[in-house]
């Protein structure tokens, strides 16, 4: 059998280790020893427990990201993978992250509590009460000295300074914090006029926030007489308190903002409502005005002067017609008169006299003589001819 080279063997070992998933991306816990940091910035140390040791290397780019550098004697958990340093002929652990030992335990405990309370239904959405729209008095559980409370006060006085704030001060970290938080909360429960409670704490490490993962605290929040808003840590931190609160917000400031209406929005709405009022009344007046104009027009149409004018016109009309009729009548009458006078002319006695007839009268009495019997001898008669009269005497009758 042909021998293979050291390099080939080492490469095969490296391949086996690199392909073993249980050796990739794992957390390993142990005590740091022989910690050294080279001039290059890379760090080398050994992780050990009672059974074995593990050579570790941490490159400079990882080391500079760490909040605190591990030191010999520290109990730590390191995250990374196992591989082979071929030139040195050694397998070693390549470290990508380091944290203090015990955090993993805390995390497991957190998950256990969370799971238990979740199973019991403490996080169910139907338990979440809405935040009252117009709170008058807000209870706050947090540290009296921390920045969290100042943040809350700032936000509240900016947004809605109409509320009263009651601080129920508490420790917010350390071994006594869970009990202190519970007591502070219970004190607020005993006040009858609180509308809602904010439980808050500024940002910190997961250990700093640990009190807010307390199971008894969670159960107490669950039975709160008023809605509870949580604002614990930073954006990404989730605590048991957050899960059980009626409303979870990421920070103390956001908790305060969620607790009250937005004053600026209210101001804007009030202005809007004033405009609405004005346009409503203006609309009303406008409509009344229109109504009035309409009635005026209706009234105008009913004005009696219109009728009088109409009548006057009728009168004028009639008079004109009367005048026409009158003139016509005059003309016909005149014509008739002329005809009549012509006929009269024809009947005139003078006309008859012209034809040789005469009119005879008794001269003394003027009585017209039309018969012989009216005469006697020696009677004087007046005889009218066409051009004058003569006197004659009857000689015989």
């Amino acid at each position, binding site marked *: 059998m042909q021998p293979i080279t050291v390099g080939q063997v080492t490469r095969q070992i490296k391949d086996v280790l690199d392909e073993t998933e249980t050796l990739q991306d794992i957390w390993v816990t142990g005590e740091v020893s022989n910690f050294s940091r080279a001039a290059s910035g890379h760090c080398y140390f050994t992780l050990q427990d009672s059974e074995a040791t593990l050579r570790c290397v941490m490159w400079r780019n990882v080391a500079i990201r760490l909040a605190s550098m591990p030191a010999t004697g520290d109990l730590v958990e390191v995250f990374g993978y196992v591989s082979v340093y071929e030139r040195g002929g050694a397998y070693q652990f390549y470290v990508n992250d380091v944290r203090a030992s015990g955090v993993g335990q805390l995390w497991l405990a957190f998950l256990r509590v969370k799971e238990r309370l979740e199973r019991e239904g403490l996080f169910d959405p139907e338990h979440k009460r809405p935040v009252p729209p117009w709170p008058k008095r807000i209870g706050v559980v947090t540290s009296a000295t921390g920045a969290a409370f100042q943040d809350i006060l700032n936000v509240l006085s900016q947004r809605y300074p109409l509320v009263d704030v009651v601080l129920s001060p508490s420790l917010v970290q350390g071994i006594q914090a869970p009990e202190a938080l519970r007591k502070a909360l219970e004190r607020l429960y005993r006040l009858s006029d609180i509308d809602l409670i904010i439980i808050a704490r500024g940002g910190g490490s997961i250990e700093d926030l640990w009190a807010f993962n307390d199971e008894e605290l969670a159960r107490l929040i669950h039975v709160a007489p008023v809605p509870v808003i949580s604002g614990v840590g930073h954006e990404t931190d989730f605590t048991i308190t957050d899960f059980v609160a009626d409303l979870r917000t990421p920070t103390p400031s956001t908790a305060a903002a969620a607790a009250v209406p937005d004053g600026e929005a209210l101001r804007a709405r*009030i202005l809007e409502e004033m405009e609405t*009022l004005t346009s409503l009344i203006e609309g009303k007046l406008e409509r009344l005005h229109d109504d009035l104009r309409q009635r005026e027009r209706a009234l105008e149409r009913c004005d009696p002067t219109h009728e009088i004018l109409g009548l006057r016109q009728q009168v004028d009309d009639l008079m004109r017609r009367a005048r026409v009729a009158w003139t016509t009548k005059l003309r016909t009458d005149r014509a008739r008169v002329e005809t009549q006078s012509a006929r009269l002319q024809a009947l005139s006695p003078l006309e008859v006299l012209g034809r040789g007839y005469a009119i005879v009268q008794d001269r003394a009495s003027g009585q017209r003589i039309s018969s012989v019997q009216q005469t006697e001898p020696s009677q004087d008669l007046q005889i009218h001819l066409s051009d004058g009269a003569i006197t004659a005497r009857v000689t015989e009758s």
Partner: protein
Amino acid sequence: MDKKQLESLSFEDSYSKLDDVIQRLESGELNLEESVALYQEGMELAQRCGQHLDNAELRVTQLLADAADNFTETAYSES
């Protein structure tokens, strides 16, 4: 509503009354006199709401407990 009544109203009372006034005006079943009176009332309420917001100052107290967990409410001071 006279001036005294108006001034005794809390912010949220003024605010909800303002809503009422607007709703009544919107219903449009009022005569001119009633409408104008409501309009005036609404404007006064709106101004009152604004004054509330402008003049309010956060009142802060804190609970101080003794060993037996008897507590009193006192004014909060930042120190």
